[in-house]
């Protein structure tokens, strides 16, 4: 269990760095989705299933969706 938690924490730190370093918001949307799933795994490993459920549903589905919709509107307006 400790190995899983340690690995998941390191992966979360790496994923967070990737999200910040990426410039293009389109690529960031997918990176944020991955970040959300990894965060969900960390929450499972720390015995917090409610928070993990919340984070997976929100961070992997709702958040990238809203980013993509905002981007579609922004790029659609460029005429």
């Amino acid at each position, binding site marked *: 269990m*400790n190995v899983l*938690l*340690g690995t998941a*924490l*390191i992966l*979360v*730190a790496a994923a*967070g*760095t990737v*999200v*910040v*370093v*990426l*410039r293009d*918001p389109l690529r*960031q*949307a997918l990176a*944020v989705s991955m*970040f959300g799933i990894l*965060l969900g795994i*960390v*929450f499972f490993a*720390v*015995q*917090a*299933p*409610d*928070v993990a459920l*919340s*984070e997976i549903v*929100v*961070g992997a589905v*709702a*958040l990238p969706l*809203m*980013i993509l919709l*905002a*981007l579609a*509107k*922004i790029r659609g*307006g460029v005429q």
Partner: protein
Amino acid sequence: MSVLAYGVAAWLLFVGLWGIVQSRNLVHLVICLAVVQAATYVLLVAIGYRVGAVAPVFAGVRLGTVAVDPVVQALCLTDVVVGTTVTALLLALVVQIHKRTGSLDPDSLRDLGE
């Protein structure tokens, strides 16, 4: 393990802040803010953890088994959902800024008087 858990929370906080400060794109800035929020979730949930404990759900589990702290989980739970809604609000603001000024560069948002 302490260093790793709290260290990851601190790392996410500073990486997100740095992303916000040197961002050249408003959407990128809003996403970095989401990373900073994730740092607080990791910190809160890490504080509540107890070694060798189970999740605070007693459906089928004998009462009296050592479980992790439920209060910080309750805080994180509502925070995750509401934080995403506030991110949606910020994205709506960004969309309107782009419609009014045509650019997404924070440095170009100088005069609010125009």
